[in-house]
């Protein structure tokens, strides 16, 4: 059952691609009129999605290279037809499924989320997807499972970053089960109502909007329900810099740079930095970490 989480913004707030610029002008006009009568009042400020071009041409997907434009140039070679996902571990229905079979019939919806990269830049993305909880319910989480582990495809022939050994591939990520079951956590299969492009993690990727972007693992081929905290790629590469939780937190700096502010992509050369919000502006997840010292469990 989807729609457990109520978005601040509705489908009407997701602008059809192409009308994006016009909408800016409309919003500017509304702003001048005092914002009265806006259908969906934003939390702190109205969220304006980044353009399709921003979202699909500025990516971190190290399997395809470390440059921000490497994924858009290289990921097209990945064949996502006939995609299979293995579900294993503490589940009632383990197995290797065709993606369509695994997720067919799950209710998809639009989610307009802030997306904050650990590198201190951010976007707003209109994802299409379903709640991860629905998928986990379908495969049947067994007693004793406390974490969910995810794995990205490794296809060296089309992945230059894999051949160069930028990280210890396959890329792996994980969530605590309660994080995975949270209604904000989704599996995305589309952006702007279109199929998600390869460089954004086709055909299915995780989106956890209150965590740094690298937690939202792309092009998933394995989902495992496990008892112990699973290893995660960036933590393996540099445990001092990247923790398991990696919640967006303006008060806990990355050892090499500040996390207090962020640069919103798409603002141009002279855009002002913005304050980074605790949990990336999703305070409803704070309860998941009650009693935890977030400087220790960063």
């Amino acid at each position: 059952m989807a729609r457990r989480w109520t978005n601040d913004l509705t489908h009407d707030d997701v602008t059809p691609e192409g009308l994006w610029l016009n909408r800016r002008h409309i919003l500017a006009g509304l702003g001048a009129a005092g914002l009265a009568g806006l259908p969906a009042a934003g939390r702190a400020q109205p969220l304006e999605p980044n353009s399709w071009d921003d979202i699909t041409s500025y990516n971190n997907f190290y399997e395809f290279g470390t440059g921000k434009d490497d994924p858009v140039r290289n990921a097209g070679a990945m064949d996502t037809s006939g995609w299979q996902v293995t579900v294993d571990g503490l589940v009632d229905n383990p197995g290797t499924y065709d993606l369509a079979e695994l997720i067919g019939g799950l209710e998809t919806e639009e989610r307009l989320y802030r997306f904050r990269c650990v590198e201190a830049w951010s976007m707003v993305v209109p994802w299409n997807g379903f709640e991860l909880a629905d998928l986990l319910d379908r495969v049947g989480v067994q007693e004793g499972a406390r974490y969910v582990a995810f794995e990205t495809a490794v296809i060296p022939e089309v992945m230059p970053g894999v051949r160069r050994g930028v990280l210890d591939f396959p890329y792996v990520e994980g969530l605590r089960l309660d994080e995975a079951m949270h209604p904000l956590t989704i599996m995305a299969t589309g952006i702007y109502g279109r199929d998600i492009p390869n460089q954004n993690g086709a055909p299915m990727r995780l989106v956890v909007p209150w965590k740094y972007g690298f937690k939202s693992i792309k092009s998933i081929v394995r989902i495992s329900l496990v008892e112990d905290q699973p290893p995660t790629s960036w933590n393996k590469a540099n445990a001092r810099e990247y923790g398991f939780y990696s919640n967006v937190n303006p008060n806990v700096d990355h050892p090499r740079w500040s996390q207090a502010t962020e640069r919103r992509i798409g603002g141009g050369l002279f855009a002002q930095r913005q304050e980074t919000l605790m949990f990336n502006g999703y305070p409803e997840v704070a309860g998941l970490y009650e009693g935890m010292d977030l400087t220790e469990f960063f």
Partner: protein
Amino acid sequence: MDRVNAALRRVPPGLIYMGATLWAGWMFWRGVAGRLGPEPVEVLEHAYGDLALKLLVLGLAVTPLRRFVGLNLMTFRRAIGVTTFFLVLAHLAVWAVLDVQSLDRVWADIVKRPYVTVGMAAFVLLLPLALTSNSWSVRRLGPAWRQLHKLVYPAAILAALHFLWLVKGFQLEPILWLVAILALLATRLRMKPRVAADSPAPAKDSIQSWG
């Protein structure tokens, strides 16, 4: 090689200043015009820093190129050095003004972030070199000028560390630049004439090749 050197003698070093200024200005204009992609600040910052590093390496290669290859770029060395500094300054300006955007945060980064600290140290080392890159300073400082300008050696190592320290994951490019710089510096170890401390000063020619 003689013909190459003869052809190069006809190229005015001023072309390097002009080319670099035009390129830097063109890149900035592309940023203003929205032609540097979704994140123009990062592109501009990295473009200036990247070319600065490459020119720094080229400057360090001038002497070994002449000594081992016979290619004479001596007439361009000052232009290469000054242009390097100009691009470092542009890189620093983009970082401070367009990226970090506040003096408080600039200072915090210099103090707290090792890769920024190292980059700033390289800049500080290059500053006196840029200020004494005019003929008057060369004459006035005499032999001390040559000693002073050896600061480019540690500056180059710091610049490569600055790059290496800022990337995520295992990336080859900054490692290769550091290796190139260390290799170019190593050629200088072997070039020092082995003369006893009390022997007369070496001939003018060999002094020049220390560069």
